[in-house]
């Protein structure tokens, strides 16, 4: 018996277009806005932006081909983001979800960010339902697995991580229409992870490497962060911050933009303290929102000899 389609699921089939204006597609699909936003909001990361542009172009062309009946399979969209901590991987993943959503490759465009703890269970039979629960939540969007290499623990062959990996691989292969998986982590450890799990490497089409920020970029990031919180540096503080960044980089556990954010949080703390202790009358808005050099130079980083810790 032929099943007549229900009205609400009946998608009218548009006639196959004979020509597609990519420029117009680029503007109407909203991809242009996402890329412009990316350029505006994210400082530095030139190679990453270039890769995203290329990926967007590929997907746009692929979509045009599909509409003309030239392509039928969904391209593999799973990605791996490698780079040091604080280089903007999560932020870019959010933008990527938005981009894929606007291009129509994912239906909802939300990002579910998880780590090993969210996927791997604690006892036998716990992992599969846990992983599936997360996968179901991520369907129609992007699953972002931070520090993905922790899933695989070669030193313990009974580790449940392997089970999560198998389920992930299966879904990445069979339900490419339903979700996009982005793996993220340090470059070297990701490489080792891919070596020991060749299934992942072959299912991931786009490898994007996130470079460290330069000192200059970090200073601009600091200014942008402050601006978003309605704070500003005075001129001396800007110089002090530049000095701070150079010194902080030489210290261990330097996490790029994240270190800067933490430093700013501490500077705000010191600024508040300074105002509280030194203010002798009413304060105006400018005084309340200005970070001065002494708020930054009070950091312990300045107490250490420059260059210490760089040699490990």
């Amino acid at each position, binding site marked *: 018996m032929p099943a007549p*389609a229900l009205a609400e699921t009946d998608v009218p089939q548009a006639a196959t277009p004979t020509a597609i204006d990519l420029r117009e597609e680029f503007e109407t699909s909203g991809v242009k806005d996402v890329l412009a936003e990316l350029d505006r909001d994210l400082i530095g990361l030139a190679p990453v932006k270039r890769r995203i542009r290329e990926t967007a172009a590929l997907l746009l062309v692929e979509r045009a081909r599909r509409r003309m009946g030239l392509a039928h399979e969904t391209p593999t969209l799973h990605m791996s983001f490698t780079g040091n901590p604080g280089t903007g991987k999560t932020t870019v993943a959010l933008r990527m979800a938005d981009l894929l959503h606007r291009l129509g490759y994912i239906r909802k465009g939300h990002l579910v960010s998880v780590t090993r703890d969210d996927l791997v269970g604690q006892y036998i039979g716990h992992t599969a339902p846990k992983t599936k629960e997360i996968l179901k939540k991520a369907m*129609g*969007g992007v699953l972002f697995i931070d520090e993905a290499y922790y899933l695989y623990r070669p030193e313990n062959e009974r580790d449940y991580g392997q089970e999560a990996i198998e389920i992930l691989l299966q879904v990445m292969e069979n339900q490419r229409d339903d979700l996009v998986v982005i793996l993220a982590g340090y470059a070297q450890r990701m490489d080792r992870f891919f070596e020991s799990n060749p299934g992942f490497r072959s299912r991931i089409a786009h490898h994007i490497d996130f470079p460290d920020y330069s000192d200059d970029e970090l200073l601009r990031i600091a200014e942008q962060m402050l601006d978003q919180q309605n704070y500003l540096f005075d001129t001396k503080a800007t110089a002090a911050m530049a000095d701070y960044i150079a010194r902080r980089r030489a210290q261990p556990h330097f996490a790029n933009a994240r270190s800067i954010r933490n430093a700013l949080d501490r500077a705000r703390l010191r600024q508040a303290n300074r105002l509280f202790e030194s203010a002798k009358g009413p304060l105006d808005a400018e005084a309340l929102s200005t970070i001065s050099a002494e708020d930054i130079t009070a950091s312990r980083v300045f107490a250490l000899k420059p260059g210490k810790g760089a040699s490990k």
Partner: protein
Amino acid sequence: MRITQGAFSFLPDLTDDQIRAQVQYCIDNKWAVSLEVTDDPHPRNTYWDMWGHPMFDNPDAAALMLELNACRKLYGDRYIRVVAFDASHGWESVKLSFIVNRPADEPGYRLERQETAGRMIRYTTRPYAADKPAGARYG
């Protein structure tokens, strides 16, 4: 005899795409969707077995389709329905339910008439399928 319970049951069976669209509609209305299974098709049998948990926080219908396919693998010879539960205050009840899988062969019901005092008749409907023990009723 084709069982008609829940929404859409007088229509031809929904295709997977149609099921997906209906489920997406439920999710977009913030209803929690879930699957239930039974092999006792009596209309008064309201308590079907749950398949997994109700999905309160999955934004896309693909999640339910994944479970539906898993459920069909195991219980493809039974009745499976989608239940959409509205948890909002004042409703707290099922807003929509429809059958998404049925056995290949549906034997229907026997109507029993019991004659009682004063020429009165009591009627009982009994699914033929329920003559067999649970779990061995279809296929």
